[in-house]
C-alpha cells in the first residue's frame, strides 16, 4: 500500500515538473522553427529564420565571425534593446549599492530614534504597486525634462530596487562584527585599507546577492520603462511585449530566450544562496 502511494507520489511529481517546464519547451521549439503550424507537435522545419529576421544571425551562407559582428554593429532593434537593458541594469545596480552601503551599515549596526520609521519608509515601495506612484511621477518628469531620457529611466528604476538592496545589505551588517575593523586599525591599517582588506571581503557575498536582485529587478521592468521612457528608450521587456502582441511566435520566442538568459544564469549561480534566505526569495517573487 505504501509502495503504491509512493509510486503515485513520484509520478505526480514528475508530471508536475513536466508541466512546469512546458512553457520553456514551447519557447525553444518556437524559437528554432519555421512555420510551426497547428496541430504539429514537432515542427516540420527547424530553422534559425526567427534569429535571422531579428538580425541576430546572418543569412545562411554568410555565417562568418565578421558577419556576426557586422550585423550587430548595424544596431538592429534587438541589439539596441539588449544594450539598453544591460546598461541601465548595470548602472542602477552599481548606484544602488553605493547609495545603500552606508545606510545599511548604520541600520545594521546602530540603534537610534526613528529607526523603525526609517526602515518602514525604505521598505514601502515593495508594499504598494508601482502604478500608484509612476503616474504622478511621470507628470513631474515631463515638466522636469526627464521624460524620455536615459537618466529618467535609471532614476525611476531605483525606486523598486533600493528597498531590496538596503534590506539585504542591512541583514549582512547585522551579522557583521565591526571590532574587526578596529583590530586592523590598531595593527596599522588606515581607514581605506581597512575597508578594502577587512570590511569588503566580509560583506562581499551579501553584496553579490543584493547586486543580482537589483539587476534582475531592473532587467524585468516594463511599466516604469514604458511610461517614463515615453517610447524613446527601448529595452528588452518592451520588445518582448510588443512582439508578443504582434503575434509572431517565433520572433517572440527568440527574443524571450535572450530575455530570460540572465535569469537562468543567476539561478544556477545563486542556488546555494537562495535556499533558506527568505529575504532573497521575496525579492525574486516580485520580479
Amino acid at each position: 500500500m505504501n509502495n503504491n502511494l509512493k509510486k503515485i507520489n513520484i509520478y505526480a511529481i514528475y508530471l508536475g515538473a513536466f508541466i512546469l517546464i512546458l512553457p520553456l519547451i514551447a519557447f525553444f521549439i518556437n524559437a528554432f522553427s519555421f512555420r510551426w503550424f497547428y496541430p504539429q507537435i514537432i515542427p516540420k522545419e527547424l530553422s534559425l529564420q526567427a534569429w535571422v529576421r531579428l538580425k541576430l544571425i546572418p543569412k545562411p551562407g554568410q555565417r562568418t565571425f565578421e558577419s556576426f559582428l557586422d550585423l550587430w554593429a548595424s544596431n538592429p532593434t534587438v541589439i539596441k534593446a539588449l544594450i539598453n537593458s544591460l546598461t541601465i541594469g548595470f548602472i542602477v545596480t552599481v548606484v544602488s549599492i553605493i547609495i545603500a552601503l552606508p545606510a545599511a551599515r548604520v541600520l545594521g549596526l546602530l540603534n537610534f530614534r526613528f529607526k523603525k520609521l526609517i526602515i518602514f519608509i525604505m521598505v514601502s515601495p515593495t508594499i504598494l504597486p508601482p502604478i500608484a506612484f509612476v503616474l504622478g511621477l511621470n507628470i513631474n518628469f515631463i515638466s522636469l525634462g526627464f521624460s524620455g531620457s536615459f537618466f529618467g529611466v535609471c532614476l525611476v528604476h531605483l525606486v523598486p530596487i533600493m528597498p531590496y538592496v538596503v534590506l539585504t545589505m542591512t541583514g549582512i551588517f547585522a551579522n557583521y562584527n565591526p571590532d574587526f575593523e578596529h583590530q586592523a586599525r590598531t595593527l596599522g591599517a588606515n581607514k581605506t585599507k581597512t575597508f578594502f582588506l577587512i570590511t569588503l571581503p566580509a560583506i562581499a557575498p551579501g553584496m553579490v546577492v543584493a547586486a543580482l536582485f537589483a539587476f534582475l529587478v531592473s532587467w524585468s521592468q516594463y511599466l516604469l520603462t514604458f511610461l517614463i521612457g515615453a517610447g524613446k528608450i527601448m529595452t528588452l521587456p518592451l520588445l518582448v511585449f510588443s512582439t508578443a502582441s504582434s503575434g509572431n511566435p517565433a520572433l517572440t520566442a527568440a527574443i524571450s530566450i535572450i530575455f530570460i538568459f540572465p535569469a537562468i544564469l543567476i539561478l544556477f549561480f545563486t542556488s546555494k544562496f537562495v535556499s533558506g534566505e527568505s529575504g532573497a526569495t521575496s525579492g525574486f517573487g516580485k520580479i
Partner: protein
Amino acid sequence: MSDLKIINLVKNFQGMDRPAVNNVNLDIHSGELVAFLGPSGCGKTTILKMITGLFDPDNGDIKLDNQTLLTTPTEKRGVVMVFQNYLLFPYMNVNENVGFALKMKGVEQSIIDTKVREMLDLVKLPDIGLRKPKQLSGGQQQRVALARALIASPRLLLLDEPLSNLDAHLRDEMRELIVTIQKKLNVTTIFVTHDQEEAVLLADKIALIFDGELQNYTSPKNYYERPKNTEAAKFFGGVNFIKTKKNNNQLETELGDLVYDGNNIDELEIENIITIRPENIKISDKNKYDHNSFKGTIKSVIFSGTHTRYKILINNIQLECSLQSVGINNIKENDEIYVHLPKNKIWGMND
C-alpha cells in the same frame, strides 16, 4: 617600551546617569605589566578603547612618551589591542594574519616571512602558518593573536580579558606565556580583567576601578594587606571587618582594644574599620600574647583542600581564619580558642 600617562580622563555615554570614566589619572612606566581590574561595566574596557582611539574622551588627555595620543589616528599610535575573542581575520591564513601589521608598514615580503616565523616560534606554534583561523583551537587562536600584535614592536600592548575564555589548564599556560613574552620584549602592557586572582598572578601593579573611578593603583600585595576601603578589600576576598573607634593611638573595638602598627594611623578618622586577612590570624588553645589577643568559640570548620577555614565568634563579632590544612589538627566546632591579631597585620581603613 613606553611610558603611558592618563590625565583627568572623562567619558560620558548617552543613557548612563554617571560618567563611564570619571576623572581617571594613571602613570604607567615603561616595561610594566599592569592590570585594570574591576567588575563588569566599571569602565576599564572603555579606557582601553580610548587609548587605542576607538572612542574620543570628553575630557582629559592620554600621553605616550610625553606626547598626546589624541590627535593621532588609531593606525599611527603604535598601540595594539588583542580582543577577548581574538578577531583573527577569517579570510587570511595564520601567516597573513601575523604579518598584517608589517604589511601595513610596507615591509618587504621576505622580511615579513622571516619575522612571522620568529613570532610563531615565540608563541610556540611553529607549524601552523598555512592554516585558517577556523581550523585552530581557542588557545592557538589566542597565541596567533598575540604574535600578530607583537610583530611590529608596538609601544603599548593592550589585552582585553586575555584569560577568561580559556579552561583552567590553558589559563596557566597562557599566563606563563604572556609574562615570559612581556618580560622578554619589555613591552609596556595593560590587561583588563574582572578576576582578581588573575590580576594578582600576572600584574606588577593593579589599577582598581569601580564605577568609572580609579580606587587605587598599587602592587597586588598592598591590595591584600593594605586595602584602601571595604569595597576594595572585599573585591580581593577580604572577609574580616571590625568597626573601630580611634582614641589617641589606641583602637577600641567590640572585641577589646587593639594595638596598631600601621603607618596610616594619622589619616584614620575617629570611626574607622580594621581589616585583617584570614591567613594572617593566629589561633591557639593557649593565650600566648599580651596584646591583640581574644578568646572566642569555633563556629564552623570548613575543609577546602590545601587550606581549612575557621569561623570564630568573639563576643558578637565573627572572624574568619584560614590556615594550611597540614599541621593543624583537633580543632572542632564549639572549641574555645585564643585568637591573636598581629599588630603589623591589621590594617585600618576609613569606611
